[in-house]
């Protein structure tokens, strides 16, 4: 039984340092224990899926990692340095970008404006410093370059309002924004939940593009086939704890669901698993 839940390397022998790590994270809301000493580790260059039943604490875990919630106890490390985020902007300032399921783009604003929203670039010289003029052309050019780099070819006109785009394209704008500013980690919180099949496929392709560029990605998803398609490793969250970390290659969807629901137990020693590569 345990054989099916170990990763290719297994054990704690690895010397590779996690990009983002959480140890013993606890978060309670009144009497509800959302996180009960949860551990978490994301390694360089991997796509780590986080799955779990409703109430397993996966969204609270992600909120803690992205700065949207402050854990009661526990420690977090970014590239080995201990960190604590009080608000999302602090996590963002340290290179952790989050893409939300709710298509978090302002519809009436254009693509470039959305990509640089809250982080606008000003013109150089007195126009920028005295008159505070934004460098619209520069932002559109950079946005276009970012799109091209991610292989988002259909979005040509960066002055196009986001509301004229399809759901998949809007999410592509969000992902491109995260990729433009996320220097260390990109978190995708149910990025395909609001999308159709074809549009979901576009977003999954974007995730693969991100991995090819060496960007570590955390993917929260309910969709097992999607998770098995793109993830290098899968973090299974259950009852506020990490129940297991597995590789999609060595485990079936049925077993993963069994771990999620508690039908399949994983010994504690198998839970400290090293990186895949």
């Amino acid at each position: 039984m345990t054989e099916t839940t170990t990763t290719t390397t297994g054990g704690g022998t690895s010397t590779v340092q996690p990009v983002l790590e959480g140890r013993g994270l606890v978060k309670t809301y009144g009497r509800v224990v959302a996180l009960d000493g949860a551990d978490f580790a994301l390694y360089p260059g991997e796509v780590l899926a986080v799955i779990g039943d409703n109430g397993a604490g996966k969204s609270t875990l992600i909120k803690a990692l992205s700065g949207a919630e402050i854990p009661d106890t526990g420690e977090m490390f970014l590239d080995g340095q201990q960190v604590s985020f009080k608000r999302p902007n602090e996590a963002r300032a340290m290179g952790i970008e989050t893409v939300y399921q709710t298509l978090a783009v302002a519809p009436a604003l254009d693509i470039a404006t959305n990509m640089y929203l809250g982080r606008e670039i000003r013109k150089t010289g007195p126009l920028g410093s005295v008159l505070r003029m934004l460098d619209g052309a520069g932002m559109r050019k950079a946005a276009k370059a970012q799109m091209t780099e991610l292989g988002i070819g259909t979005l040509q006109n960066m002055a196009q309002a986001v509301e004229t785009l399809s759901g998949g394209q809007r999410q592509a704008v969000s992902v491109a924004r995260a990729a433009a500013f996320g220097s260390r980690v990109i978190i995708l919180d149910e990025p395909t939940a609001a999308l159709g099949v074809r549009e979901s496929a576009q977003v999954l392709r974007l995730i693969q593009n991100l991995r090819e560029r060496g960007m570590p990605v955390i993917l929260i998803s309910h969709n097992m086939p999607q998770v098995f398609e793109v993830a290098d490793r899968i973090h299974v969250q259950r009852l506020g704890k990490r129940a297991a970390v597995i590789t999609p290659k060595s485990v079936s969807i049925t077993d993963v669901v069994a771990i999620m629901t508690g039908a399949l137990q994983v010994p504690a020693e198998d839970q400290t698993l090293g990186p895949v590569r």
Partner: protein
Amino acid sequence: MTDATATTAGYDAAEEFLDRQSPIQRLQGILHAYPWLSPAVVLVIALIIFSSITSLFAQPGNLGTITQQTAVTATLALGQTLIILTAGIDLSCGAVMVFSSMVMAKLAFDQGVAGLPALFLGILVGGIAGLINGLLVTRVNLPPFIVTLGTLGIFTSLTLLYATGRTVRNRELADELKWLGKPVLLPGGFTITYGVLVMIALYLVFAYVLRYTAWGTHVYAVGDDPDAARLAGIQVNRVLLSVYATAGVIFGIAGWVLIGRVNAASPNSGIDANLDSITAVVIGGTSLFGGRGRVFGTLIGALIVGVVDNGLSVAGLDEAYKRLAIGTLIIVAVTADQWIRRARA
């Protein structure tokens, strides 16, 4: 909108909207991109109609008069535009304007404050009034309609109590306060006032600020989708607060323009000014749902109201037609906005 070349990488969802554009959809798209276009057409039509009804209308002297009559409403409507862009509304703007004008006039006349400091303090009172509105909206989380309905009553009664029901008349006013009523002669026989120039200058400043600065972008973003703005790291409440305070300062300046226009500071002036300003904003193509609109649309909207008002009286027609025409325009404008908002290029 998307280039025809956009067919790479298998992201072919764009094809879905490449072909199926009817002329009506294209019109919808154009109006969507340029919200001031339809009010501009309405203004031109109104000018043509009134010019053909009476030859008195298109005289340079009369056209100059229209700009003077429009200056106060247009200034107020500029502040109103900022607030409506954030999906808010300000019913208290006229009351703030009159309050500011009374403070200026009485400080200079009764308290013996010099003209310029009195002017400055009057405008500051407008800013504080706006700040109070903003704090109630952002900290107490009340809907802007309710907040400003309440402060409309409060500022109106404060004005009456402070003024003790008395108008500060022309010869009692400090010179600096009357400055905006002074005429400026333009070539071709047009006569405008310094008040008109101040109004236009304000429009230019805020057109620039909204179009070219981060703050302007954030104002649009907050009105368009506050959740998306928040997730992008914008401090939504801080933007809202700054918008209400800035609008308050503009209302204070409108109080100065008002004194220049009526040559007095009266606690009873500007009764319908709040509704007039909302009318100008709405006719000008700014969406009441926020995030969409241009200040120049508002200026055109204010001019439409001014032209209809003036044209009817110059043509000797009943004043009642004005309300009929403007009321119809409001409904048409908002209907058009609803329709344009549905445009998905």
